[in-house]
């Protein structure tokens, strides 16, 4: 049995290419672990940027609470603050930004702001953090969400926090990629099937070249165990 957190961490890691500058923010344990995994496996020269400002942390310390804490600083090899990262993206120098949200549409739109009417919201969400400026400016914005249902993948967003350079959306069931402004189903994770996905998705499922997501390899699982013994990659699932 493959845990969704392991599968998602591995899929996110595989999307990182060697040498890319990659940022994740708060509440981002899955991308944080994915980044460490990618650097350990196929992308040793990817650059790990984060809110605390430590460049390329090894995260020998495993604090569980924050993906913006000083465990991303202490063994970093340089300083590059959150403001610096944003500036980098604004001038076109950020390759990848990992971002999440609560609603996603089929055109790469993200809502992390609110449910209901924006002038009188039914649910006030945490907010998009960097999304509104990073999704339009990073070369690729990779989205992830640990829920996959019709309230999450919707036909129409209640509020458009950001739209722009979204390239991927990874859920516990599958991996979408953007093609000509539309989210196409790219691969289905082990254990899921297209009917389940369609029944849990609020927008029409379309694809051109449908694949099975390769399950985590032994090397990937071993590396995951090594870099994330505290199972931070599962923290979003534990708190569901």
């Amino acid at each position, binding site marked *: 049995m493959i845990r969704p957190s392991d599968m998602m961490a591995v899929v996110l890691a595989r999307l990182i290419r060697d040498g890319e500058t990659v940022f994740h923010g708060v509440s981002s344990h899955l991308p944080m672990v994915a980044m460490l995994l990618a650097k350990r496996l196929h992308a040793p020269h990817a650059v790990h940027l984060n809110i*605390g400002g430590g460049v390329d942390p090894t995260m020998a310390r495993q*604090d569980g*609470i924050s993906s913006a*804490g000083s465990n991303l600083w202490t063994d970093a090899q340089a300083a590059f603050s*959150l403001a610096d990262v944003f500036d980098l993206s604004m001038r076109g120098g950020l390759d990848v930004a990992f971002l999440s949200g609560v609603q996603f549409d089929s055109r790469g739109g993200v809502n992390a702001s609110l449910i209901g009417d924006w002038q009188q919201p039914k649910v006030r969400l945490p*907010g998009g953090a*960097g999304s*509104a*400026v990073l999704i339009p400016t990073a070369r690729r914005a990779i989205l992830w969400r640990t829920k996959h249902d019709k309230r999450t993948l919707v036909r129409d967003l209640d509020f458009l926090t950001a739209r*722009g350079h979204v390239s991927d959306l990874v859920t516990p069931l599958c991996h979408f990629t953007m093609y000509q402004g539309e989210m196409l189903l790219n691969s289905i994770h082990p254990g899921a099937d297209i009917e389940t996905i369609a029944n849990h998705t609020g927008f029409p499922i379309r694809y051109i070249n449908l694949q099975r997501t390769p399950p985590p390899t032994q090397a990937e699982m071993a590396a995951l165990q090594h870099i994330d013994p505290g199972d931070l990659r599962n923290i979003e699932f534990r708190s569901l």
Partner: protein
Amino acid sequence: MSKLTSLPDALKAIPDGAMLALGGNTLNRAPMTAVYELARQQKRGLRLVKTAGAMDVDLLCLAGCVHSVDAGFVSYESHFGLCPHYRKGVEQGRVQSNEHACYTVISALRASAYGLPFMPVAGLRESDLRKAHPYFATVRDPFGGEELTVVRALRPDWAIVHVQQADELGNARIDGPLYEDVLMTQAARRVLVTAEEIVPEGFFRRSEQKPQIPHFLVHSVVHQPRGASPSSCLNHYPVDEEEVASFLALPDAEALTAWLNDRGRTAR
């Protein structure tokens, strides 16, 4: 010229309705003891400014201190989840949520630090944030380029930051992640520093690590060991999860008052 004072005295200078920038990020190096005391003093109508807030914002919302929150993100991150009191405050119309991209908070603070009424923001394009909030506008590039989104300056009345070391004059040194703290001290009219440790005058003169916050920007200094707890403080303590959970278990504002009083007795 010592600026050392007690936390209650320092915070008495902050009037109801003040705009406050709070240092740190989520559950990291937030000036929590000062936040507790703001709640104890029952401030009203505070306008909070932060890129990513958590228990600081949530507690002040429960205590009824908050008029508005200018932030990019308000949540305890994944482990403790959403901020229930902030949410409820906004949903019931008591708290105004001025959502920003974290970067537009930075840009708005930079505008103030640079003495400008606004700051252009390259990245803010297709987003309902622009239409929903009057602090966004556009200007045209006078060098023949396109229209640009700009964000209105945020000029906090006070910045409150917690640091590892300070001297009595107000020179303050942060170890590790700075977050937006230094910018906040430059954007705000006045600065309150709480510090784990008060070092002797002259200490920093002999150090190669100069304070990032110079004394002349600082109005009050409070010696407050564990002043960021239950958020973390590098080289001192991690997040105190039990304390956060204890706060989140409080049913209402009345319970908070008792809870804060408990902590006040042990702290003083």
